[in-house]
């Protein structure tokens, strides 16, 4: 779709770039416009800029006809590409001629249908181009040449220059005849992009474009990240569009690096609440990098470059290392670190570079300056390679990203699996409660639950490990105690009931522990972890006085 789907007022922070491109394209009227390539990180807004430019050219002037085409990786046979390119151009050109928006959406029209349309429009120049295309339909190369030259020919025939806006152009290197990709086919664009009455504005994945000879000689225009003011204004506009109040925390806004896609994902997620607060925005960000559109987008890129699962894991591990190493890494060093051949290390690193996940400079590779990307890599690596649980990832990112409040404290204990070790955890909890002046009743209930969690952990991990691990995290409004052990999962997640030993479960007293824990805490979660199993117990406390809001017993 050539037009932007953004509502009026939502395209913020890019007016200067849009204005500069608009003026540049209008120079085609005097035969002085040059083709350019838009460069910028993924999600930075290149495609949106092209759509906005198309809208301006279509509605706000009548001197240069706009033609917008997004290369579709599913239509890369020369025959299919030529046909869609030519039909797209002729329809859009006629739409501009008649100022008839509906014609922009005739992409699926047949050649016969297009012929009729051209006849109705009395556009002789278009008929000539189409007739020539029909005559050469049996020769894919000739068809491609005719399609690519169509904007220029129309310009010569009508005197009306054409601005060709090409998005996702990097896919062009996959153009194929008889199923065989041939990167040289892209060079057929060479002639079309040199005409100064048909400037081509090209966009796509920057690292791949950089490696394509056909565009390497073109002027590059950098689409930079939004500045602080632009990002803030864009965030406000998005919040208004969702009819939500609130402000994206400045630290988070900086973390998003002025990337409109990242910003859009986080605001959309946070706006599942009508009045998101600071914590909601951070939680939304963490959800996005763990399971939202944001991580999905990067995962798709990674899968595209590393379809093989084994290689994807290696690629993730290398990306993780590069993003956590201050100095640039050579292929030799990568090869040594991951026990790969130099060639294999180079292939992986080069593909990571083409994917936009790392930077490649003079034979060495370093991290992209994109903190969100680094978080995504961390998340994927920790989850896919180190098999960390969702809870562990959430904890990791909360600790790493979210500004810590003054009252937050964490206590970790490793308890040997000896008789009554659970009392150590319970008594530690009691002391923590005293130190922080928490309600003894709240602590007492949590102690009962923790004792049960420890007993379960000890019982089910016997013979599998030496210790159980208890962590107490004191937040402003809750106490969270996690008990992790090497034991297998002993509950059915859906029901929260024990399942390991059905016969034993029927015996007296079995299953009471889970019920008891549920009774004495506000939330309970069971997780499969890299170590084994983790029980997370959460008990709410009041912010101001550190006292629990209501006794769990009083609910009954």
């Amino acid at each position, binding site marked *: 779709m050539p037009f932007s789907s953004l509502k009026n007022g939502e395209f913020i922070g890019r007016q200067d770039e849009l204005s500069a491109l608009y003026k540049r394209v209008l120079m085609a009227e005097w035969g002085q416009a040059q083709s350019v390539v838009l460069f910028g990180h993924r999600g930075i807004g290149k495609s949106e800029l092209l759509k906005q430019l198309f809208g301006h050219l279509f509605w706000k002037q009548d001197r240069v006809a706009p033609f917008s085409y997004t290369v579709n990786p599913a239509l890369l046979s020369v025959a299919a590409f030529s046909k869609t390119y030519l039909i797209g151009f002729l329809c859009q050109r006629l739409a501009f001629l008649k100022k008839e928006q509906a014609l922009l959406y005739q992409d699926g029209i047949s050649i016969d249908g297009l012929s009729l349309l051209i006849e109705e429009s009395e556009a002789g120049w278009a008929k000539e181009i189409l007739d020539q295309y029909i005559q050469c339909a049996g020769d894919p190369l000739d068809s491609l040449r005719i399609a690519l030259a169509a904007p220029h020919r129309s310009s010569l025939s009508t005197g009306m220059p054409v601005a060709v806006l090409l998005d996702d152009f990097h896919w062009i290197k996959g153009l194929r005849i008889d199923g065989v990709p041939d990167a040289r086919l892209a060079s057929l664009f060479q002639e079309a992009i040199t005409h100064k009455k048909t400037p081509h504005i090209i966009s796509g994945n920057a690292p791949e474009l950089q490696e394509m000879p056909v565009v390497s000689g073109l002027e590059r225009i950098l689409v930079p990240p939004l500045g602080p003011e632009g990002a803030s204004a864009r965030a406000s506009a998005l919040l208004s569009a969702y009819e939500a109040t609130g402000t994206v925390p400045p630290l988070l806004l900086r973390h998003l690096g002025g990337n409109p896609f990242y910003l859009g994902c986080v605001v959309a997620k946070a706006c599942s609440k009508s009045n998101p607060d600071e914590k909601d925005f951070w939680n939304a960000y963490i959800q996005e990098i763990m399971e939202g559109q944001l991580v999905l987008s990067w995962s798709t890129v990674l899968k595209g470059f590393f379809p093989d699962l084994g290689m994807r894991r290696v690629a993730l591990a290398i990306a993780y290392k590069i993003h956590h190493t201050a100095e640039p890494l050579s292929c030799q060093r990568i090869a040594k670190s991951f026990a790969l051949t130099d060639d294999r290390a180079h292939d992986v690193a080069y593909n990571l570079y083409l994917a936009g996940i790392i930077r490649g400079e003079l034979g060495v590779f370093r991290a992209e300056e994109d903190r969100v990307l680094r978080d995504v890599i961390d998340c994927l690596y920790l989850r896919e390679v180190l098999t960390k649980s969702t809870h562990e990832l959430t904890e990791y990112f909360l600790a790493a990203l979210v500004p810590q409040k003054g009252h937050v404290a964490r206590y970790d204990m490793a308890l040997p699996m000896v008789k*009554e070790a659970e009392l150590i955890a*319970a008594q530690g909890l009691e002391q923590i409660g005293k130190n922080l002046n928490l309600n003894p009743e709240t602590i007492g209930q949590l102690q*009962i639950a923790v004792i*049960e969690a420890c*007993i379960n952990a000890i019982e089910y991990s016997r013979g599998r490990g030496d210790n159980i691990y208890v962590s107490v995290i004191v937040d402003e409004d809750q106490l969270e105690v996690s008990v992790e052990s090497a034991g297998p999962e002993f509950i059915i997640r859906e029901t929260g009931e024990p399942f390991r030993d059905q016969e034993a479960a029927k*015996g*007296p*007293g079995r299953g*009471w522990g889970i019920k*008891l824990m549920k009774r004495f805490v506000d939330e309970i979660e069971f997780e499969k972890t890299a170590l084994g199993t983790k029980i997370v117990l959460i008990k709410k406390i009041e912010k101001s006085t550190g006292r629990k809001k209501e006794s769990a017993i009083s609910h009954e």
Partner: protein
Amino acid sequence: MSNFSLSSRSSGDIAVMMPKGYINDIAAECLEQENEQFLGHGMKKLVVNFSDVKFINTIGLSVFLGMMQKTLENNSILCFTNMKKDHQAIFEIAGLIKHVKVFKDEKDAFIYLDGRP
């Protein structure tokens, strides 16, 4: 040093057991044995005073179940006193509270038991 101790006394035909500390499986067995001794001596009115009990875990709780069954088989009466709200909740969760008489303190339990044969 153990986290559990048990003291007991009898007053007329009423036996009082006073567990102290953490009631787990071992402690509950200790309590069960004491209970059986009282039953063996023909005591049919039994009181467990929970005032010094700090924690009860569910393994200890399961031993209580056996203790209650034996008391019922002997046509005896088992009373619990001085229970904290949370301890009472633990017995409720296990469905054991219906098998015993719960009183605020020993005095109330004695008043109830004095009127019984």
